[in-house]
């Protein structure tokens, strides 16, 4: 399906993927701003996408990706991020050119090459910017988001959002490498609802409960399994 798409459709799908906010439609205005084109041409293209059953279009509200649309978009994003990884890690392409080079490179990757690339790169989880690479079935991960305080030691997840009003504190966390789309591992939890030690990018930090309860993560598959079986969090001694 991807092969017979014009690059413009691909750009639209990627834009919709970036701008999507669980279940909410992306407005024509936002899409136009993101793609830097006139809103009128956006409306036209959305109609085309709707015809191909890639989006559901609600007038005055905007567009929302269908299941197929999401899958196609995720596959595109996956190849883009994989390309960035490849260009950075294997070829040493300068940081500032990564995105643009990947935009060109991603279009020449076949399924077979994609698989080989993954292998050669050691199954990376994120692109060099720290964004997660969607899984091979094309599904993207952010279908659930739970606070850091619901994790057990040794469990992992990807930050989806940090609910923090104070921009300075957010900035501080960012300087430590804590921002959305970053994978973290829970190392230890202090007793009596104490702080939580997490590990990210090779550094470990103890985060107080008041900080941890505002950090939301998409849990990895093991955590989901545990939650599904209704087991509760390990209590401290």
């Amino acid at each position, binding site marked *: 399906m991807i092969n017979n798409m014009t690059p413009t459709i691909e750009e639209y799908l990627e834009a919709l993927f970036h701008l999507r906010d669980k279940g909410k439609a992306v407005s024509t205005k936002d899409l136009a701003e993101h793609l830097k084109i006139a809103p009128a041409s956006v409306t036209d293209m959305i109609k085309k996408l709707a015809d191909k059953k890639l989006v559901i279009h609600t007038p005055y509200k905007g567009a929302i990706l269908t299941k197929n649309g999401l899958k196609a978009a995720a596959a595109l994003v996956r190849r883009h991020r994989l390309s960035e990884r490849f260009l950075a890690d294997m070829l040493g392409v300068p*940081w500032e050119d990564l995105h643009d080079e990947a935009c060109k490179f991603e279009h020449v990757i076949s399924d077979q090459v994609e698989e080989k690339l993954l292998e050669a790169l050691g199954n990376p989880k994120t692109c*060099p910017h720290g964004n997660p690479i969607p899984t091979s079935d094309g599904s993207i991960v952010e279908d659930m988001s739970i606070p850091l305080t619901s994790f057990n030691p040794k469990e992992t997840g990807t930050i989806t959002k940090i609910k923090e009003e104070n*921009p300075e504190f957010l*900035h501080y966390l*960012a300087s430590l490498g804590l921002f959305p789309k970053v994978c973290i591992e829970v190392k230890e939890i202090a007793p009596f609802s*104490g702080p939580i*030690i997490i590990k990210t*990018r090779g550094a470990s930090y*103890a*985060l107080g409960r008041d900080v941890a309860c505002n950090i939301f993560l998409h849990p990895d598959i093991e955590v989901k399994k545990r939650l599904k079986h209704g087991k509760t969090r390990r209590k401290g001694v």
Partner: protein
Amino acid sequence: MADTCHIMAGRLKEPVDLIIALAGNPNVGKSVIFNQLTGVDVISANYPGTTMELNMASTRLGGLKIGVMDLPGTYALGAISDDQRVARKCILEGHPHIIVFIADATNLERNLYMLLQLIELKRPMIVALNLVDEAKRLGYEVDHEKLSRMLGIPVIPTVAVQGKGIEELLKTSVDVAIGNIEPKPMRVSYGRDIEDIIDELEKTALKHLERSPHDLPVRALSILLLENDKEFVEDVKKDKGGPEVLKEAARLAEEIRKEHGESAAIRLSRERHGLAGMIAESVKSVSEEKLPMSQRLWAYTVNPRTGVPLMLITMAGIFAFLFYIGGALSELLTRLWEIGPHVVIQSVVFGLLGKGVIGKTLIWGFDGGIEAALSVGVPYVLTFYFILAFLEDSGYLNSIAFLTDSIMHKFGLHGRAIIPMVAGAGCNVPAIIGTRVLTSPRERFIASTLIVLVPCSARVAVIMGGVAKFAGISYALGIFLISLLVIIVVGLVLNWLMPGQSSGLVMEMFGLRRPSLKAIARKTWFRFREFVFVAFPIVLVGSLVLGALYEMGAIEVLSQPLKPIIVGWLGLPLITGATLIFAVLRKELALQFLITFAITQYGAHAANLSTFMSKSQLFVYGLVTIIYIPCIAAISVLVNELGWKKASAIVIMTTVIAVLLGGIARIAFSFFA
């Protein structure tokens, strides 16, 4: 607060030719390198308006005299916290001739983040790649030559605790500072779209700004403005063309936010982390990942199942060490004093001035006072400082802080406060100074107040020797129980009353490290030296005043106004009032003086306190003694650490609580009897 760094350089014993600034993340061995580089001539000062301590010392290379400045350790170079602001100000305004960035080889990626920020400032700098031995133990190596090529600045591998690489580091710093080596730092670049935006802002800034604050490269300034850096936004505002530039910066930052769905500050942060990660990845070669002993041990210290027992043992150990070893040392010093200086001082003073009021008063000050300060200072303060420095440098303090954080949180404190609180049971004085490990003034006030309420060894001696002996152990235990309750209630109330709340805990956990004995010894000595300079004069003057009052017979006159409180409200014999005044000098004097005064008043049999005080009176007396005003040494450090106002508040508060509870206890006793 302009040139603290230069002013400090001026205070060094001799003028310096060069200034080196040591920058880097916390816990990367910065102070160890500082100690290895420099000699004993160290100047410490608080940076104006902050609790940040700056150390400066000098060293020599060839004919050059070099000042070395130890900046606060920070994770980034921004304006978010005091430590970040101070570190950046010193670099921008202190104009060090060279910056030595100390990077932790075991955590290169995170360290490179701040290094990239520093490179953007375009100041002369080199990198010390420290802890390369630790990295090897973890199973990987960092190619420092490749790193140097990528960054475009010299990188010197070091093992600071063993002094390896220090000489080369100093030599290379000087070479760069005097221009023998000319580094060509890399250009820190961002994604193409961000680069375009930076370019745009740079052009606007060049067009409108009269000058860049601190002569910062305009590119660096543009990035800081996009990040909405408080200090630089303020600086630019003052420029004539500033508003125009700020408007443009805000517009462009919003453009980034729209494009990437996150604020410009976070986007820039993300890209910088990405770049740091890329560099770290390409210079690191992993042979096999190993978990060295120190890491495995560390895991036990933070696992609740093993960490909590370990912590309790450590606390008990510290307490026992201060109580027994400190106590024994104190006794030894007192004895040594009695046979040496005591005799000399007495004979000199009495020989010169006779045994009049003046002579005796001087004996109070120079004999009793110095002895009191010594017997607290050396055995308790010095030993505790050593333990504290060891806990800090080994990294174990962080494990304890992690485990106790939730309990301390209820008092508005962080886990780090637990160590000074426990130490307070040995002696309040070092414990109060130990609150420096806490960051906010609010936390330090709460912690100091609670420490003052913790019965120190001297007060325990009064309770055991007075109350337990003459009224029974159950009375003594009752007093300890009440004092524990008081600590809990005061903690809860202060947390509730005081404005602000404890900030969210974000603390790096860096495993256990082998501490450097030299660094610990120096840290201990600097802190102790400060204690000596602050506490000794106050104790001396206080002793002289009290002595003069006593020798002139004024104590009894002074205790008359206390009659309503001592006799009326607390129901105690009037002579106890005078003993309570004297106990401010040293708390254990409460008991000694009570016995002395009783004997002069009632005769020899009064050495048995129960002959003139009932059990309930002894209980009330013990309770008041344990809670009211800390001793004069404690007051002196309170004043030094918190200022007059807060110190007075603590003194008044504890006295009021003591008198209140004493009276309530009397009423309760009479009710049950």
